[in-house]
């Protein structure tokens, strides 16, 4: 029975393809398109990612090297040598990937990931500035507690997208001096910040890539994101959870100012009902 | 089972493996509902609704169905089997009727699916279970035509009977 098999040529191309793939993959990851990180925990996350890139990169290259070698060496037709099953060898061989993988993966998780995790979800520092950010289709509404340090009552029935997007209660004394801003979260540099996240409608996700922060905003539940911005500047907030047709436009900003500037700025902002 | 028997080249088991698998996935289904129930009841708006006694009375009908079906399985003679099967079917239909009544009573008491999550779960569960029971009735017909399948049929009925008992206890206790 005759069939078209162009063994050598295929082996040639396939080996070449794997080679190119390996190079491109390594190169691409090496180019590292991550935006510059400006938070301590962000740096440790990047450290973890770098660790993963190195170890998986090595394994990826190794695996493909072997694959290319086999494809090249064992190409061709005709019978191969017969070797009866050797369960023992096979189990022993299996031990290698088991140990290597378990080592790499669990080292990554236990030694590098869990500390960051704890940092992110650990207790909020006493001196942290507490801000509230509310996601709604398709905007981020920022609220500061104002001079009294108390967030006023809100009521869904009072929500008026144009004038009172959070539905602040005019009759609540605590609400009078609350400062409400659209889309721009202004915070001091080098000071821990705790953001209480709420949603008015569907799910959103509060993502600040430069901070390596991503926290889903769940309706009917207040989530918290905490971080220490170290470099003054303007960063973008992205919505990282499909929230409707304007999802891609749900963009906000974090404005990190020098601590004293921030205090001045906040003092100048009029309260909601003042 | 015919094809299976032939394919296997050996006698097919009296309780087909397929049925066992199906019961497995059915149990998973109701377990999922139960798990969701446990999650949901932790939220603030949880208001327990007390079920009408009729809900419990209906259990008797299910039990009756199981018993008669069991007898149908054991009776060798064709017509006695037919009688018992008919009885089972009647019990089953009666149960469905009873369940509808329960829902009606709840409505009359001003309790609808959206009134409280507890009620919602009761409605959903009775509907989903009802659907399985309707399937069971279909199985009865099949069993009547194929006595070989009666055993499996009975196992199915017993299982969904027990499931309903368990659910009822679960949602009244929790």
């Amino acid at each position: 029975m005759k069939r078209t098999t162009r063994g050598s040529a295929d082996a040639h191309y396939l080996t070449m393809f794997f080679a190119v793939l390996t190079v491109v993959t390594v190169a691409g990851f090496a180019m590292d398109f991550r935006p510059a990180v400006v938070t301590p925990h962000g740096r440790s996350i990047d450290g973890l990612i770098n660790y993963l890139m190195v170890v998986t990169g090595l394994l990826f290259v190794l695996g493909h090297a072997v694959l290319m070698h086999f494809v090249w060496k064992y190409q061709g037709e005709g019978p191969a040598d017969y070797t009866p099953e050797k369960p023992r060898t096979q189990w022993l061989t299996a031990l290698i990937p088991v140990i290597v993988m378990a080592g790499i993966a669990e080292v990554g998780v236990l030694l590098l990931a869990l500390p960051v995790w704890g940092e992110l979800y650990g207790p909020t520092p006493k001196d942290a500035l507490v801000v509230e950010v509310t996601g709604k289709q398709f905007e981020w509404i920022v609220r500061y507690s104002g001079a009294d340090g108390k967030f006023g009552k809100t009521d869904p029935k009072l929500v008026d997208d144009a004038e009172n997007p959070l539905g602040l209660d005019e009759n609540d004394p605590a609400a009078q001096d609350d400062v409400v801003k659209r889309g721009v979260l202004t915070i001091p540099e080098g000071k821990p910040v705790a953001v209480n996240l709420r949603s008015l409608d569907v799910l959103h996700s509060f993502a600040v890539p430069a901070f390596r922060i991503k926290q889903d905003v769940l309706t009917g539940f207040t989530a918290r994101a905490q971080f220490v911005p170290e470099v003054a500047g303007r960063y973008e907030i992205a919505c990282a959870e499909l929230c409707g047709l304007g999802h891609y436009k749900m963009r906000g900003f974090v404005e990190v100012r020098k601590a004293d500037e921030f205090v001045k700025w906040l003092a100048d902002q009029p309260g909601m009902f003042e | 089972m015919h094809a299976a028997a032939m394919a296997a080249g050996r006698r097919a088991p009296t309780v087909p493996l397929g049925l066992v698998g199906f019961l497995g996935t059915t149990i998973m289904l109701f377990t999922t509902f139960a798990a969701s129930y446990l999650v949901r009841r932790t939220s603030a708006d949880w208001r327990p609704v007390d079920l009408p006694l009729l809900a419990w009375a209906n259990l008797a009908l299910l039990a009756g169905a199981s018993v008669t079906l069991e007898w149908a399985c054991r009776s060798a003679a064709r017509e006695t089997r037919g009688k018992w099967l008919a009885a089972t079917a009647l019990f089953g239909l009666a149960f469905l009727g009873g369940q509808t009544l329960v829902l009606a009573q709840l409505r009359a008491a001003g309790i609808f699916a959206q009134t409280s999550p507890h009620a919602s779960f009761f409605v959903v569960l009775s509907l989903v279970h009802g659907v399985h029971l309707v399937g069971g009735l279909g199985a009865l017909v099949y069993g009547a035509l194929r006595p070989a399948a009666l055993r499996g049929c009975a196992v199915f009925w017993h299982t969904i009977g027990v499931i309903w008992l368990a659910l009822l206890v679960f949602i009244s206790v929790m």
Partner: protein
Amino acid sequence: MTSRWTSRALAGLCVAALANWTWADAAGKPWDPAMGTAAVKGKVKLNGAAPKRKPVDMGSDPACAGMHQEPLLTETTIVGDAGQIKNVFVWVKRGLEGWVFKAPAEPVVLEQKGCQYVPRVSGVMVGQSFKIRNSDPLAHNVHGMPKLNSEFNIGQATQGGENVVTFTEPEVCMKVKCDIHGWMVTYVAVVPHPFFAITADDGTFALAGLPPGEYVIEAWHEKLGKSEQVVKVEDKESKDLEFTFEGK
């Protein structure tokens, strides 16, 4: 036997329905402009202090803020020095039931310009096409929140994007908003006839070409609410009305 009865019953029902329908149709006679000889005009005023217009916070989209040298002011309640109120929708609420009006062919246009809606309040007739245009170089979405008509939610990602909607039920007024720019709000009134007006800067309105008769005129404002007056106009007569809203 029974089948015949049922068929008869059915036929009867059909006849009844038909009659009913034709009657309903006959309820209004087509509007003839020649009849429109009377007019109602007037002014809408605010009694009390005018609420202060705050600057609009366009933080969520710098592109929007970039389109304005001066920050835009909120348009919720625009009151002149003499207390005259802008953007009040005035219409004939009752008194024209006898007529059937044809919606004009040309559409009512709503512009999205500089991340605000122009106009703030628009009136459209039942069945008339309502064209929504995006004149901004950025994306908007138009989310209509009617109570009687069917809801619509359209994304207009590019400049010059146009969509047309029509309404089937009279509704004064429905809110239309942009979810991407929460401050963008506009109101659309759907009415069964052409006798409506929106007060200008000086708070005046004019309903011309009315047939003589007695009417209930309603003035609607997004914040201040509604108020209505009864007015009777004779042939060739023009009456003046003044609506006064209490400041909150």
